[in-house]
């Protein structure tokens, strides 16, 4: 068997703050094959974002500390890389889309400037940078890209901003796209559009995706596998359809119960009994 694209072994991450040590990620393992899509699902504070940022060592150190484990990108441990090696994988092999497009884009530079910066960093061989930018803005479904690319972020709607973020992430042909709650800040119809866009892109580009979300409802149809995180641990992982059909862990069951279903009479949303789960 060939080496997987990404292999996480026994990864633990802690934050050393004034109020004490927070163990945000506690000994997680997972692997990701090339072109595969993994959804990481869990409630707020369960360590999803920390896991995603750790993949290219983006957490601020201090307070963050990588306590133990390995992050193997095609066999090479990211945690042992030197700063300039890290810079070469960031944006280039592993690219990110974040939750809040309105603040994640730099407000004082145009979309074109920000995408061009990524191209110049990782693909210096590209001659016609503008044509490349237009191509990718078109790919993520932005109409009239030649004009739109000269806009500043605030001139675009939230959905358009997130599409521009996705274009910026894709433009360097990453092997892995980490999308950290890419739709949470957007309104519902736009959410669906962005997820659909990711589905389309997935079929067009050979690229692995880690989709971080707290919403089980959006992952079917896009994620091949799902890992459920609870309090810094992965409590369950497996093929999406299987986990959805037959969840093993009570926390997973509780999360799946939170998905509102069409045609179902409105019932009370279940609350999650953390004390009981922690005791497991």
């Amino acid at each position: 068997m060939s080496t997987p694209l990404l292999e996480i072994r026994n990864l633990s991450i802690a934050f050393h703050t004034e109020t004490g040590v927070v163990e945000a990620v506690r000994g997680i393992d997972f692997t990701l094959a090339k072109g595969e899509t993994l959804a990481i699902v869990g409630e707020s504070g369960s360590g999803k974002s920390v896991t995603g940022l750790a993949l290219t060592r983006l957490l601020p150190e201090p307070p963050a500390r990588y306590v133990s484990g390995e992050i193997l990108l095609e066999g090479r441990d990211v945690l042992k890389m030197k700063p300039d090696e890290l810079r070469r994988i960031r944006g280039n092999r592993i690219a990110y889309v974040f939750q809040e497009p309105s603040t994640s884009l730099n407000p004082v530079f145009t979309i074109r400037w920000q995408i061009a910066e990524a191209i110049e960093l990782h693909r210096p061989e590209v001659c016609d940078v503008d044509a490349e930018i237009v191509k990718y803005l078109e790919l993520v479904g932005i109409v009239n890209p030649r004009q739109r690319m000269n806009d500043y972020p605030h001139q675009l709607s939230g959905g358009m901003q997130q599409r521009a973020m996705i274009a910026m992430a894709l433009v360097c042909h990453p092997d892995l796209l980490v999308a950290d709650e890419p739709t949470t800040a957007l309104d519902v119809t736009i959410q669906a559009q962005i997820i659909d866009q990711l589905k389309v892109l997935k079929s067009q580009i050979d690229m692995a995706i880690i989709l971080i979300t707290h919403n089980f409802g959006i992952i079917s149809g896009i994620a091949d596998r799902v890992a459920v995180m609870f309090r810094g641990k992965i409590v369950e992982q497996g093929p999406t359809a299987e986990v959805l059909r037959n969840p093993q862990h009570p926390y997973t069951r509780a999360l799946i119960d939170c998905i509102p279903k069409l045609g179902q009479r409105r019932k009370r949303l279940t609350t999650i009994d953390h004390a009981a789960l922690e005791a497991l």
Partner: protein
Amino acid sequence: MFNYIIRRLLYSIPILLGVILITFTLDSVMMTPNEKASRVLGPKAVGKTRTEWIHNRGLDRPMPVQFVNYVKNLVTFNFGTTWVTGRDLSETFLQGVGPSLCITLPGFFAALLGSLGLALFQVFVRNSPVDRVLTLFSVALMSVPTMVYVIFAQAFLALNLRYFPAYGFAYEPGMLRFLLLPIVIFMLINIGYDARLYRAIFLEEIGQDYVRTAHAKGVSTARVLAVHVFKNGLIALITLVVAQLPKLILGSLLIESLFGIPGIGSMLVQAIQTGDQPVVMVSVFLGSALYLLSLIVTDILYAWADPRIRLS
């Protein structure tokens, strides 16, 4: 944009009129026309010379008329003459601008570059011992009173070691020797304060989401600071920097008078000491006008630095 500037200029008019009204009233309250005449002509000049002097200046007319005339003179840059030397005031001010700028311009730019560099470097090594030592250094620089710098420079560097003249000014090829100490002191008293402000501005920016995005793209830390953070910090920086512009033209009161630089600052100090009211009044008018102008410049620069702001 053009309309905006016109409107702002129009808004400035009532403010300036208010400033003039206050100085004008103070001037009239402090001295009667007779006292002014005897102050200028000497106590012996009585009778016809004195009434003529008063009449020629319109000081015997009703107050509102005097005020209107005074405003007219100010806005046409017809500032009148000083009481002490009798020289034309606009000429005196124009002569003072040169020496003032000789000190303030180089001092201002040195302080700006120094404090920006220091602030960015401190943000780069933030929360490290180096950062803390530099913060201590900045606080020390801003806490030492100007007089201490001046005394050290004059007593030690100038008089003891004879590296520099302690006092004086001349437009000549070697004039730098007169300027160096005042310029360095002007820089030192500004750099510590500015560096701490700028550091705070940049630290605020460093926590923003777009900084994480830039790192996630693979941008180097130095470039994140010098390009991404800097351009965003510029918006807050502009207010602080442009607010200093009037100070540059009006000079530094203390440094100029202690080093014998014949700029507007030392002129003003002398005028206050000798009770030369016209000089003080014109200085207040020019200072307010420059300040209002710098506010408009700030707005224009804002719009340039921040695409989210449109002047309308």
